């Protein structure tokens, strides 16, 4: 309420304070201020994208302007990279959400050691994917601690294979993306007015009902944001898929296909086409997620005087 009223009064004031002859001048000044940002976006994002798009429409190997795209979608091996990538990005993202939602809910209030725990959760972010992959290679390797411990405890005789396959890549992506997902959700969970839960409790709601009926719906915007971010980042997976997976088989991801086109076949045009396809898929996923999000509740997480 208050926020709305405040907003409208500010607008009124701005218009009142600016007689006609000044509007142009200040509008120009405002435009001038955003020039650096616009240049940056144009130079670092729009231009490369346009350049890549143009490059992809000018096939090195001949054919029509869409030859690269035709090739990608008709070649079984190339087309499969989309599904390969989805099968890595989706499980990693969903696992993270499933773990991070209850955790963020638990940590939403100031609990003892919250800083320490948050710090520990965030460490993977500082490591980078290559370091995580290296660590996992030794830890989960046939002579690594993981299998040694299992053997010692007589849980298994044969080493469990968690590297050089899809599972390994999913584990490393989960570790690498967890901090982002957790921090986003923690922010949303902490923003929920604690009185809402107390009110639900006074109205007879059990712990699960409070979570299911009050907390979860209010966290939906956060969940959507975390999903989108994590999915897009894992969809671009490259180093871990090569180091920990089977880059020739089940984890031949779309980014790897682009890399091969560019640096093994030196076909920049085909590589650009694959990059454009990758970007399009990501944009589609974002559109779907935020489209769904806008259909659900996405207002403030506390009513009362806003």
């Amino acid at each position, binding site marked *: *309420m208050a926020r709305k009223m405040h907003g409208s009064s500010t607008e009124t004031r701005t218009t009142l304070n600016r007689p006609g002859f000044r509007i142009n001048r200040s509008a120009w000044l405002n435009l001038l201020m955003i020039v650096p940002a616009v240049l940056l976006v144009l130079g670092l994002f729009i231009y490369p994208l346009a350049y890549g798009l143009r490059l992809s429409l000018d096939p090195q190997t001949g054919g029509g302007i869409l030859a690269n795209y035709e090739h990608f979608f008709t070649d079984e091996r190339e087309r499969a990279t989309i599904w390969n990538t989805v099968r890595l990005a989706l499980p990693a993202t969903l696992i993270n959400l499933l773990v991070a939602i209850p955790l963020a809910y638990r940590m939403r209030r100031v609990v003892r050691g919250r800083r320490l725990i948050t710090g520990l959760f965030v460490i993977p972010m500082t490591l980078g994917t290559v370091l995580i992959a290296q660590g996992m290679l030794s830890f989960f390797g046939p002579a690594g601690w993981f299998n040694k411990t299992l053997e010692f405890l007589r849980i298994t005789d044969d080493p469990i294979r968690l590297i050089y396959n899809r599972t390994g890549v999913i584990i490393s992506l989960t570790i690498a993306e967890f901090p982002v997902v957790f921090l986003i959700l923690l922010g949303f969970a902490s923003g929920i*007015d604690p*009185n*809402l839960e*107390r*009110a*639900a*409790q*006074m*109205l*007879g*709601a*059990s712990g699960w*009902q409070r979570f299911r*009926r*009050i907390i979860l*719906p*209010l966290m939906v915007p956060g969940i959507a944001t975390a999903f989108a971010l994590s999915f897009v980042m894992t969809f671009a997976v490259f180093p871990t898929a090569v180091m920990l997976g089977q880059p020739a088989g089940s984890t031949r991801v779309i980014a790897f296909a682009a890399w091969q086109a560019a640096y093994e076949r030196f076909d920049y045009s085909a590589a650009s086409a694959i990059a454009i396809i990758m970007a399009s898929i990501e944009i589609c996923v974002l559109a779907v997620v935020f489209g769904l999000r806008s259909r659900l*509740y996405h*207002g*403030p*997480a*506390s*009513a*009362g*005087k*806003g």
Partner: protein
Amino acid sequence: MTTHIETDQRPTGSSGTRTSERPAPRIDTLRIRNLTKTFGGVTALQEFALDVRGGEFISLLGPSGCGKTTALNCLAGLLEPDSGDIEVDGDHIVRTPPERRRFGMVFQNYALFPHLTVERNIAFGLEMQRIPKAERDERVDQILNLVHLGEHREKYPAQLSGGQQQRIAIARAVVTEPRIMLMDEPLSNLDAKLRLEMRTEIRRLHHALGLTTIYVTHDQEEALSLSDRVVLMELGNIRQVGTPRDVYQEPASAYAASFLGCRNLLPVRVASLDGTSVTAESASGMSLTGSLRGELTPGDNAIAAIRPENINLLQQGNNAPNTTIGEVQAVEFLGQGTELSISCELGDNIIVRTNEDTWQYGDRLVLQLPGDRFFIFPAESEEG
């Protein structure tokens, strides 16, 4: 004597002869025994004990930090007391979780569920009770009519004004037919006009629905106007319990007096006692006669208290007892009467309320403190 509105609404028990259409309260008694709660060594609530009859409206009154909200949260079950007992009609509930106490609560910031419509907010408690949809709809309809917000049922809380939100919060709590209604400063976020409207509304609903209400406030006017009984608290302790009339006219201590409108407090020393009449000496050596409140012996330090509206202003040259000459330091026109700040032998800032609005800054006048309205309390020791 004027009639006291609250007496009409007080429950009269089984032998009641009232013909009020008020529904019977849902509980007979709420007994609170020696609730104590400490936070990290600081005692927020000490041996809080109170018996509440079904249908009563009780206010917990006191400044922030007096323990009133702690007491309410212990009643709600949102806080677990360190010791003590809560009993509703013989049912010991101090270990019962809040969701099974069947109490209603209204929060200071309303705490409406922002993602649910008005209708769904109100239906929430009924859904938790697994009440069939048809009955649920009917009860939501009824309560929406009762709070006059039927046309807003499809709206979200953020689309409503503060007063409307508070009405919904109350409706959401009362629709579940709670055994006891708990209200935590529900009016403090509203503007002055709305506060008065909602005060009447709360009293109306309390009466119409046969509620038993525990109401927390720091506003003495709210407490006096709403309650059947006022519980005055300080530093985690109950200082006085009584009807609004009693606590206002017969404050039990200097603290109670100061919190209930005795804005003039003077340190004095007892000179002599004669029955209930005390003669005391002010810091400046002036001799004053007042009514004894509490236990005092000659030589004791005491506090004299009088309300601004009980001080008389006389013509200059009057030599009656308990009079002193003062000079007007400030004049505040209040619509109904005027408040003067007067500097005199007793102090620099004696507040007097008068109906004459002819006084001006610098005027000299005579103050008279009538002995029967001039209370002399023992000075507060550091017992708290």
